[in-house]
């Protein structure tokens, strides 16, 4: 008996977004990275084109982290006071595909640094590495709206990915990204309906769909990742069915979420039954990343070098 053909094909694809610009295009990156483009559910290459591979962005902070567990700080402790050196190490030793500069230090509760500091930090990273860049806001709307226009202007031409706009605060950052040629992340609080709404609001301002990326506040393994997984899966299915407001590629905040989890922070001495903290913590970040990769994440923002290595290897396997 013939084996039935169970292929599920789609006429629609996830949008492609190009991050970075080389010298000839007005930037200074050594190469660009294209994300998205899938015409199937993740890795189902029998059904159709799986598009571009998932990429890993390593987080670099503008100033030394104040709230990272010792174990996470350990691999970066020699470079944590210089974002440029930090970024170079992340690329050279950790194989970061992109660098995400997190402007935590401008947050009023985490140093309240000014725009000049933020510009200096992103400039150092830009000069230190050739990979495409992501810049992520602090999360304080007022401070972000004050500082980010200057950061955006300092990186004009680099076609960075800017994170993130939310339903209640999207106009200013959307405007500056439009003006400076950057791409933009639309954020939603684990809510597919709001994700769609944010995409509509941003596109209503005339922002091009092929410069938009979606982000659901991710949730780590054990902390709601199943919600993120099913939302992202549903987003991908909607994209394949032709929903233009759900066709953007997806980014996940793996490192940030994982290293907030109890399982990564509690030492073995407090919880002997959980075993080695390092092994457990690195594995927690890696497993969070891989779950999201399987749900259709196009960029993973990660933090620990060993977790990055583990996930890179797994992605290679999935693609081979």
């Amino acid at each position: 008996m013939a084996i039935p053909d169970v292929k599920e094909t789609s006429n629609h694809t996830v949008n492609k977004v190009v991050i970075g610009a080389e010298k000839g295009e007005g930037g200074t990156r050594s190469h660009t990275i294209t994300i998205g483009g899938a015409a199937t559910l993740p890795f189902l290459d029998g059904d159709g084109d799986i598009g571009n591979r998932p990429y890993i962005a390593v987080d670099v902070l503008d100033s030394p982290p104040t709230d990272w567990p010792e174990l996470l700080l350990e691999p970066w402790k020699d470079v944590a006071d210089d974002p440029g050196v930090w970024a170079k190490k992340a690329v050279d030793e950790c194989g970061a595909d992109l660098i995400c500069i997190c402007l935590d230090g401008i947050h009023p509760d985490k140093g309240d640094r000014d725009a000049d500091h933020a510009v200096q930090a992103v400039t150092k990273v830009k000069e230190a590495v050739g990979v495409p860049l992501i810049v992520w806001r602090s999360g304080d709307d007022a401070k972000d709206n004050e500082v980010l226009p200057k950061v955006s202007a300092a990186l004009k031409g680099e076609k960075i990915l800017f994170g993130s706009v939310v339903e209640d605060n999207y106009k200013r950052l959307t405007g500056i990204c439009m003006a400076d040629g950057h791409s933009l992340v639309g954020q939603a609080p684990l809510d597919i309906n709001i994700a769609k709404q944010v995409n509509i609001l941003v596109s209503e301002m005339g922002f091009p769909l092929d410069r938009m990326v979606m982000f659901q506040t991710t949730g780590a393994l054990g902390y709601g990742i199943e919600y993120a997984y099913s939302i992202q899966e549903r987003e991908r299915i909607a994209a394949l069915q032709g929903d233009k407001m759900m066709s953007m590629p997806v980014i996940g905040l793996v490192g940030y979420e994982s290293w907030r989890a109890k399982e990564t922070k509690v030492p073995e001495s407090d919880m002997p039954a959980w075993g080695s903290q390092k092994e457990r913590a690195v594995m927690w970040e890696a497993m969070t990343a891989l779950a999201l990769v399987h749900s259709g994440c196009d960029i993973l923002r990660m933090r620990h070098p060993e977790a990055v290595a583990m996930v890179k290897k797994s992605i290679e396997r999935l693609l081979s």
Partner: protein
Amino acid sequence: MIPIGERINGMFLDMKKAIADKDKKPVQELALRQKKAGAAYLDCNVGTASDDQEAAMRWLVETIQEATDTPIAIDSQKLNVIKAGLEAVDNLKGCLVNSCSGDEEKLDVYLPVCVEKNASLIVLTMTKEGVPQSVEERVEIAATIIGKAAEYGMESARLFIDPIILPINVPGAQAQPGFIMDALSQIRIMTDPPVHITCGLSNISQGTKERSIINRTFLAMAAAVGMDSAILDVLDTDLMDAWITAEMIINKQIYSDFFLKAARMNM
């Protein structure tokens, strides 16, 4: 949802005059307005506007294609007129033949023509014995149609089954919409992917005094049980809004506060 814009039809006076006078402008304007309103296909029926229906169909198809690339639904009860339309149509854009009855001897003629031209086909669940009066008869005719389509190599995704909507005010017809809805949910599970279900929507309100609300309500009800296409007035915004909303409520479209706008972006 697959809306088929009904307005380019020689039964409407403006189109009858345009076809008779070979006046392209009103046809092309209506084509573009329907496209903008979300028509996935533009129905194209020469009606009684010309003695030479084949020539009129060719002219109508060419006229529409000059203005827009929206696929055309070639609408005639006569095979020679459909063939004339198919000759004029640009194959690459795909088109829909509207329509053929569920009689086997008709299917034996229409299906190979459509397969050869890469056209989709609307088949009515009626035979020379008339419009069926029960759920079972409709499902039986649909099964014959689906079997024949498979025999001729037409994919189920290109087959549109029209379960025939009768005017609600005809004596005895009021039981029919319920039968149709029962039948179409059964027809939808006969193939994977399911065949499309369409209907000439405005038939249901023919001769009534509340046409708009009857059309709109039936469309939402039928959409809820799987009717994914309709030949209708796409320029009726309330009607299209009702359809979009029905599809959103059954989770075929992800909700957002601007879901009406979002749905139109996808049309």
